């Protein structure tokens, strides 16, 4: 990639918008995943009895079961949210960058 092309793309408002939106979004989702998992693991390490509490009196099913399943669903849903937005909005922006490159250079 030539130096002028690099400068040209960096100055492109669509490119700047893409970077700002996507970087923020990826970081937010990553933090969400890491936070949920860390809380889960640290609960196991420090307060395992919380996850061992029965869901209701007389029930053997513990809080840990829906929480554990919830972490699996959460991971899957996050990938769905990211993929949907990136394949729509972010790809549109990056196509606009490519388009303007073709027109101007």
């Amino acid at each position, binding site marked *: *990639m030539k130096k002028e092309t690099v400068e040209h793309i960096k100055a492109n408002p669509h490119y700047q918008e893409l970077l700002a939106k996507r970087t923020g979004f*990826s970081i937010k989702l990553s933090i969400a995943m*890491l936070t949920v998992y860390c809380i889960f693991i640290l609960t196991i390490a420090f307060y395992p009895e919380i996850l*061992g509490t029965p869901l209701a009196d007389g029930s053997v*099913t513990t809080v840990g079961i829906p929480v554990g399943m919830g972490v699996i669903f959460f991971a899957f849903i996050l990938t769905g949210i990211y993929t949907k937005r990136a394949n729509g909005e972010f790809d549109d922006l990056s196509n606009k960058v490519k388009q303007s490159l073709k027109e101007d250079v």
Partner: protein
Amino acid sequence: MINRVFLFLILGTIGVFAAGAIEGVNPEQPLNISAIVMFLIFVGGTLGITYWAAKRTKSAKDFYTAGGGITGFQNGMAIAGDYMSAASFLGISGLVYYKGYDGLIYSIGFLVGWPIILFMIAEPLRNLGKYTFADVASYRLRQTPIRSLAASGSIATVVLYLIAQMVGSGKLIQLLFGLQYEIAVIIVGVLMILYVTFGGMLATTWVQIIKAFLLLSGATFMAVAVMAHYNFNFGQLFAHATELKGIEIMSPGGLVSDPISAISLAVALMFGTAGLPHILMRFFTVSDAKEARKSVFYATGFIGYFYILTFIIGFGAIVMVFQNPQYLDMAKQAVDGGYPILGGNNMAAIHLSHAVGGDFFLGFISAVAFATILAVVSGLTLAGASAISHDLYSSVIKKGKVDGITEMKVSKAATVVLGILAIIMGIAFENQNIAFVVGLAFAIAASANFPILFLSMYWSKLTTRGAVIGGSVGLATAVILVILGPIVWVDILGNAEAIFPYKYPALFSVISAFVSIWFFSITDTSHNAKAEREAFEAQYIRSQTGIGAEGASEH
């Protein structure tokens, strides 16, 4: 010519298989006819696919990436096929059977790396790379040192993983099919060499897809059969299971004992997954970043679903296999007491398949377990062979002055060598304690491969010196701490106390890798370092937009 060699090899394999099937009858282990018939159907089908793929594999790009024409859905299924090994199917369901809730904790650890791969790795990897992750790591850094290091990390990960798979497969097949251990290892090695050398990535991908489909179907059937017994009511299933095994199976047990071990295991699983060369390589088989993202979305769905199934299967085994005299190892019970099952806890899912579906379904699940091993070792070998041919031979030795056809030939030769090596090591390690091997593979992937890959994508100040020193430090720290840790130092070498107290070194080795990379990069004032930092912007634009990316689709 190629076709004739291929047919010869197919016939040869079936000959070996038939001979083994007759000679290898263990007096205690009856030959499992329905399993062998179903396995032969699988082998026949996949060799047919390999034959078809061989005709379509003409260039290096076809060989390494199936021509880049795999769809996101197919690739997601293939990634799941790569990741759901026999060890995770039998091991996690066995852990749930043995410990209950702890099995779920373990499987969640294997899943949470995937969203992070999607948010951080998948897209830049697809946009910057061609065949291997070293393409990305060495994009703006010096080729020779970076590729040598990345290839070492890849080959170490692949070989360790292969040893674990080969030994596990030999034992499993011995138990399931009544074949001799050595014969089983040789069959796995020969079939894997056939798939990869002739069919390349295209055949490997379809073997993964078929296996993932069979494994998910079989596991779904087992889980549904278990739930049907309890009117699809989890409460009833858990109630019955706790009557047999006690209430503690519903809570976290001793799997994760102290916070340091817990975090260290989490780091190994999360960053290790993002540094496994055979997984990273799968992202080059799709056409663009859009399909790469879909791959992870589908893969996460399939893998998450699979872990939920293994959880149900583990509990199903508690209620249907535990204390069932049919599956009891009476000889072991006479010595140790309790209710040991034949073949140990890892056979819980296999016995459950018999309990819910009789001999026929047991045969099906056994064949699926065999197919699973084949698919995983094929993916591993292809990744190892690519590191040897694309990174070491083509880039380091020949300095990029080599044509695609020659490179492909080297890759095929490397596949054969790796396959033979895998067979030899599988036989050599038969009676060794290899519990540490997969953990070490993950630790190396997390401490050497992942930091270089991640920082090369996102950190503009990274230099060759920093990456090489830091990556080597990560690799060495991971290996040394595993050797000094409780599994190798105490359990294998027989010392009284471990020098390094934790089973999982990743937390320490990953931090030392990142810190060394940072320190030796920022203090690098060489002329090269300046040029490498300046090249970051152009790389970053390509990684973010796909402009100039390999095989990018035109819009």
